[in-house]
C-alpha cells in the first residue's frame, strides 16, 4: 500500500486540509479564531507537504527503474498540485482577516 500512499500523498494532504478547514469553519462560524486556526492548519499541512515532497525528490535520484521513476514523478506532481490547492484553500482565511 505504500506505493499508493506515496502516489496519492499530495492529494491526500489536500483532502485532510480541506476537511480540517471545513470543520474549523463550521465549529467557529464567522469568528476570527476560525481564520487564525485555518491559517495555522494551512501552514502546518503545507510544511508537511513540502517535507514529503523534498523527501520524494531526494529518493527519486536513486531510482533507476522505469515504473518507479514514473510513479515518483507523478508523486512529485501530486505534491505540487496538492500544495497549490492547499494555498488556494487557505486564502479565504486571509481575506477574512483582512
Amino acid at each position: 500500500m505504500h506505493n499508493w500512499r506515496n502516489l496519492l500523498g499530495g492529494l491526500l494532504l489536500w483532502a485532510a486540509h480541506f476537511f480540517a478547514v471545513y470543520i474549523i469553519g463550521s465549529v467557529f462560524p464567522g469568528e476570527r479564531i476560525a481564520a487564525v486556526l485555518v491559517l495555522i492548519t494551512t501552514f502546518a499541512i503545507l510544511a508537511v507537504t513540502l517535507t514529503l515532497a523534498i523527501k520524494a525528490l531526494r529518493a527519486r535520484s536513486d531510482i533507476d527503474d522505469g515504473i518507479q521513476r514514473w510513479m515518483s514523478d507523478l508523486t512529485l506532481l501530486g505534491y505540487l498540485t496538492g500544495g497549490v490547492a492547499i494555498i488556494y484553500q487557505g486564502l479565504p482565511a486571509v481575506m477574512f482577516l483582512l
Partner: protein
Amino acid sequence: MTSETGFDPKLFDRFPTSEPRPQSEVDELTRIWAAPRGWRMLTIVNNNYVGLWYVAAAFLFFLLAGVLALVMRAQLSLPMLGVLPQETYNQFFTMHGTVMMFLFAVPIMEAIGVMLLPQMLAARDLPFPRLSAYAFWAYLIGGLCFFASLFAGLAPDGGWFMYPPLTNSTYSPGINADFWLLGIGFIEISAIAGAIEILVGILKTRAPGMTLARMPLFAWAMLVFAGMILIAFPSVILATLLLELERALNWPFFDATRGGDPMLWQHLFWFFGHPEVYIIFLPAAGLVSMMVSSLAKTELVGYQLIVLALLATGFISFGVWAHHMFTTGMPSMTTGFFAAASMAVSIPAGIQVFSWIATLAIGKPKYNTPTLFVVGGLVTFVMGGLTGVMVAMVPFDWQAHDTYFIVAHLHYVLIGGAVFPVFAAFYFWVGMTSRRPLSERLGKWVFWLMFSGMHITFLPMHLSGLMGMPRRVYTYLPGMQWEWTNMLSSIGAFILGAGVVLFLVDLLRNFRFTTDDDAGNIYGGGTLEWLPTGLYSTRSIPVIRSMTPLWDNPNLAKEVEEGRHFLPNSATGLRETLITSPIRAEPQYLQVMMGPSVWPLLGAVFTAGFFLLLTVQAYFLSLVCLPLATFSILRWLWDTDRPVHQKEVDVGAGIMLPTYVTGPSAHGWWAIICVLVVAAMIFFMAIFGYLFVYGVHPTYWVVPTERWWALPISVAYAAAAVLIFFGRWLLGRDRSTNWSPTIAIVFAALLIVAALATDWFSWRAQAIDPELTAQGAFSHAMLGLQGQLVAVVILMGGYLAARTARGLITRPRNTTFDVVTLFLLYTCAQGAATTLLLRFFPVSG
C-alpha cells in the same frame, strides 16, 4: 529491474514463443466461452453481450429522457401553453433529470467500461462476470419500473435532487417521492456493484507488463471513476434511506421543528451530487484521450499530466459539494473554501483540455465523425467550464442561482463533457461489435444537427436565466421578454432531437452485432481492444511493452492469434483469466471464472421486486421477495471459490502459476475491501449527519444516562473480534478439525448478535423517542444500520457453516473464510463505534 511480487520480469523475454500451437486450443476456448442460445441467452455473463445490452439499455433511457425534454420544450416554447398540466410538468422535469443522471449518464459509462475494458486490458473477462450480469439486470429492471411510474401518474415530482421539506410526507403525500427514494437507492446499489467489478478488474486483470505507466487512459479514468463511486454513492444511499424513514416512520431527520435540518439533505445529496458530475465526466475524458491520440495519429501529449489530472479531479471534486448551497446562508469563510475548491477543480480539467488541443495540433486529424464529436464536445465543455467558473464566484451565483443560467451551464458541461464524447465513442468503437461501421456521411449530419441544436437550445438559456427566468416553472406570462429565447431553445431542442433520430436510423441501417467478424480497427487505434478477439477475448494474452502496443509492434496481432503469448489455451479446461499485480501487472495466479447462470438474473428480479413492491406498499409480497433475492445471490455465490484440482498450471512458455491464492493478492479480497469501503462511507456519513444536526439544534438533545452499557457491549464486540482472529488462526492449523475454525466464526457471529441486541434494548430503555427528536431518529437509524450488517453476518455465518458441511472450505487458507472474517471484523468495529458515539455524545447537556 525490481519486482512487485517476486515474479522475475526476465521471464517476459520468453514471449513471443516460437513453437506452433494446435488449432484444437482455439476450438476448446471457443467451446468454453460460448454463449448460450435461445431463452438461455438471459443467463449470459460474457462481457461482449452484457456490455452491449448495458450500453443499449442506457441509450434507451437517454432516448426516453430526451423525449421528456422535448415535450417540456414544447410546453415552454410560448407563454401560457397547455401542452402539459402543471403536475405532469413537475413529474417530467423530475424524471428528465433523474433518468439522465441516474439511468443514463453513470450507467452508460459503466456499460462502456464493461464492454471495452476486458479487451482493452486483454483479460478474458472482468473478474466477477456474474456481478456484471446482476448489475445490468438490476439496473434494467429497476430502471424500467421506475420510468413506468410516469404512465401511472406516480412519478416523482420534487425535482431530481428531491429537497425536503418539499419531499416530506406533508408536502408530497403520495408515493411519488417513494418511487424516487427506493428506486434510486436500489439503482445506486447496482452502480456500486458495477464499480467494484471495474475497479478490481482494472487493478487485477491487466495484461502482463501493462504497468500503471502503460495503462490506457480510459482504464485510468475508469479506475478513478469506480473509486469515486465507492466514496460518493454511499452518501446518497444514506440520504434516501433517511428520507424514506422520515416519510414512513415519522423520524425527523430533516424536520427543523424536531431538531432535524433540511440542510442535512442538501449536504448528503451534494456530497454525492457534485462528484457525480466528475464521475460522468472522467470516463468520457478517458475515452476522448484515447480517441484524440488515434484520430490525430500521434502519441497523446502529456499522458502523465492527464493521469495526474484524473487523480486530482477525483480528490478535489469532493471539496465542491456545497457550491450548490451558496445561497443557503453558510458561514462566509466556509463558503470561501468551497468557492476556492470549485475554482481549483477547473485546473485539472484544463490540463486535460490543453493536452487534447496540443495532440490535435501536432497530429494530422481527419475531420471524420468521431473527430467532429470530440472537437465539438471540447468546445462545448470549455464553454460550460467557463460559466462554471462564473458560478463558482459566490456573488455571481447569488444572482444566477435557480435560474435558467444554471440549466444552460449544466447542460453545456454534461453534453460537452459526456454526451458528445459518448457519441464519438459509438462511432469510434462500433467496429469492435458490428460487422459494418456506421455511416460517415450520416454521421456528419448527426453531428452538425446535434451540435447546432445543442447550442441553439442552451445558449439562449443563459440569457433567459440572466433575465430572471427561474428553473422548473411550467409556464410564464407574456411580456416577460422570455418569449424569443424560449422559442429559440425549443427550436434547438427539436434540431438536437432530429440529430439523435438520424443516429438511430444510422444504427438501424448499419449496426449488426457480432462477436467474431467485426468491422475492426477503422480509425487505427493502437491499444489492445483492436486485437482480433472472440468471446474468449484474445486467443493469447500479450506481454505489454508500451502504451500503444499495436503501433509499436505491428506483428502483435499475428503473434496473439497464433497463441504465442500468455495463456494460449485453457489450462484448466474452465473459464479462466490471468490475475496480475496492481502496479507492475506481474502474473500472480490463474483465476477460474464463473460461466452462465440464471441466478444473477433471478437475484436482480427479486431484489427489484423487493424494492418496487415496498414502494407500492405491497409489504407482504415485498417481504416474500427478500428471502428469494437472498437465496438467489447465495446460490450464485455457492458455485464460486471452488478448489481446483491442478494446484499449478503452465500459463505459457513453461511459466507455472498457482490456480488459487488468498489474502491481498486475491481478487476476492479486493472486492470485499471495496464493499467495506462502501459500508464505512455510509457509516461515516451517518456520523456526519448525527454531528451536523446536533451542531444546528443542540437544544433538542439530551445527555444519555446509563452510559456504562457501552462497556459490556464494546467488550462483546471485542470478544467477537478475538474469536474471529482465533478462527482464522485455527484454519491454518492442521491439528484442528474442519469444523473448528467455522465454529469459532459462528460463535463470533452469535456474540455480535448479542452485542447488538443489548445495545438496542438498553438504548430503547433510555426513552429517546425516534419520532420526537432528531437525536432519537439518528440513534435508532444508526442502530438500524448496524442491524443491517448483523443480518449479513448471520447469513455469512450460516453460509460458512453450509460450505464447511460440504467440504468447500479449503485449508490452510480460503477466500470465502477471509471474506467472512473481514466482514465480521468490520461489523465489530462499527458496532463498538456506534455504541460509544451514542452514549458519549453529547458529552454534557
